Structure formats: C-alpha cells, structure tokens
C-alpha cells in the first residue's frame, strides 16, 4: 500500500534550511537558534538510543512472522478476537510511532484485515504498558482506567467504520 516513490523535495529543503539556520545561529551567536538545536540533539540522542533494538525487533518480526500466521490471527475472518490480539500486541509496543508504522504496513501486506491493522495502530498509541505506568503515576490510576475504558471500544468501532469506508472506495474504483 506504499505510495509510488517520489523524492520528498519539501523534506530536504526543510532539512537544508534548518541546518543553515542552526549553522548561522552558531556563527552569529543567536540564542534561540542554539536552544532549538539543543532540543534537537536531546531528542535525536533519546530516539536513537531506542532505534537499534527497535529496528532489530521489527526486522525479526518481518522475517519470522509469515503470511500464514498473520492471516490466521489477523485475517479476514479473525473477527473480534483479531481486534483483541491486535490490542495485546499493541500493549507490548516499546518503540516510537515511526517504528510502529512499518510494522503495521508489514502486517497489512501479509494479509491482515485493514480494520485490525487500524486497531493495532490506534491501540499502540494509547495503551503501551511502559507509558501507562508513567500515566498512572502522574495522573492517578482512575484517570488511566477511564481513559482505557472509553478509548479502546471507540478505537475498535472507528477502525471497523474506517475499514468499511475504505472498502467502499475500493469497490467504487474497481
């Protein structure tokens, strides 16, 4: 489902301008520019500490989990159980959204039903175990319980609705 390859020009222009801005800031001692770059390095270091392990896990997942397995658990007829399994898989997510994306797209390519991939994506945003522990610590356990109880059913419902919408579009095109 990946779109046809085109060079993301805007992205490179943006990165180029950003680099220029930072370089100039350092030359003329422009404080805001330096602060911005401090944040940049902080985040990059933080993310890249996770990346080796995260990408290795996704790579292993792609090689070992084959079509048959995905179709059996997440395929066209997996129904409600498929959604539950997708949520369980999502709960164990330990890496950022940018790594969840290729994994979800791999699931889809291997025959998972679209609505279940969507549940996985949605649930991986809201119910990761490590994040939940943080949330409960700072905002209280009742907060977390209500959020789960309200958002998980809504995620399943919205995934089914979006899945149906996309199917209709495809049928129209076909």
């Amino acid at each position: 489902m990946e779109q046809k390859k085109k060079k993301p020009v805007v992205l490179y222009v943006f990165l180029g301008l950003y680099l220029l801005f930072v370089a100039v800031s350092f030359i003329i001692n422009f404080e805001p520019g330096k602060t911005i770059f401090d944040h940049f390095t902080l985040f990059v270091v933080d993310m890249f500490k996770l990346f080796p392990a995260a990408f290795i896990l996704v790579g292993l997942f792609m090689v070992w989990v084959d079509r048959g397995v995905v179709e059996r658990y997440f395929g066209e007829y997996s129904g409600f159980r498929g959604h539950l399994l997708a949520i369980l898989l999502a709960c164990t997510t330990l890496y950022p959204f940018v790594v969840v994306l290729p994994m979800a797209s791999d699931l889809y390519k291997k025959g998972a039903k679209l609505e279940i991939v969507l549940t996985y994506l949605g649930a991986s945003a809201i119910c990761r175990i490590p994040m939940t522990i943080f949330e409960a610590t700072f905002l209280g356990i009742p907060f977390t319980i209500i959020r789960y109880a309200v958002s998980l059913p809504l995620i399943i419902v919205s995934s089914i609705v979006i899945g149906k919408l996309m199917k209709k579009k495809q049928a129209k095109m076909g």
Partner: protein
Amino acid sequence: MLYLYLLAGGALAASLLKDRNKTKKALQAAWKMFIKMLPMILGIVAAVSLLLYVLPDNVIAEYLGAENSLAGIGFALIIGSVSLLPGFITFPLSGLLLRQGVSYTVLAAFTTTLMMVGIITFPMERRFFGTKLSVYRNIAGFVIALLVSLCIGLVYGEVF
C-alpha cells in the same frame, strides 16, 4: 529501555540459533528500513525542536488553564494534535500542569490527542497508508480524544 534491549537481544539470539540466514535477512531489512526512514525522522525531530521553542511549557500551561474550560479543551485538542512529545516527557509535564491547576478534562484532551493525532508525523503516515486512510485515522483520533476528555470531565465532576 533496558527491557527493550533485553528483548531484542533475546530475540536475536533465539533467531540466530534457529536460522542464521533468516537472521541475516532480518538485520538487513532492519538496516534498510532505518536508512529509508532516516531523513523523515530527522525532519520530524527538527520540526519538534522548532515547535518546542515557539510553545514552551509555561505558554502551554497558561492556555490550558484558561478560565473558560471549553476554551481550555479546545486549546488542549489543538496543541496535542500539532505536537509530538515522547511519553516520558508527556506525563511528567501533565503532572506539572495538573498541579498548576489545569483540569483533568483538559489534560485528557491534551494527552489523548498527543498520542493519537499526529500532524507532524502525517507525511510519514501518508507514505505508508495513503492520504485518505491517514486523514480518516487522525480525524477518528481527534473525535476519540474529545469523547475521552468529556467522559473524564463527567467522572471527575468538572463539566456539567
């Protein structure tokens, strides 16, 4: 983070024992994926660093703590949608905001959109799933955040 590495190390070892060739393929796939996504990731981080300068903590606190709670929810939904913060920053920040008097309702709107709606990651999502699907998904996330925040508000007795 330690668990992540233990898990990855364990999985890698198990995979090596079972099939060396497949393991090599997995590592190659992982590397290729990383290289392909690298410019996008750097772009996102660059955008976040700019955003954080424009919207520092105290500005966020000021808007979210607005007297009018409806306006607070609105700001929370918008700020949460355009921002992207790692979880280990989001929740300590939320704890801080809570102590500064921001309501649970507003915090629910803020944290849920932060997690579910990603304007900054949208270009990347679009590459994997196409524009239409990504738009639907983000709108759904926004609506879910609104509903979650209203429910939290009801339970905590902050709205109505």
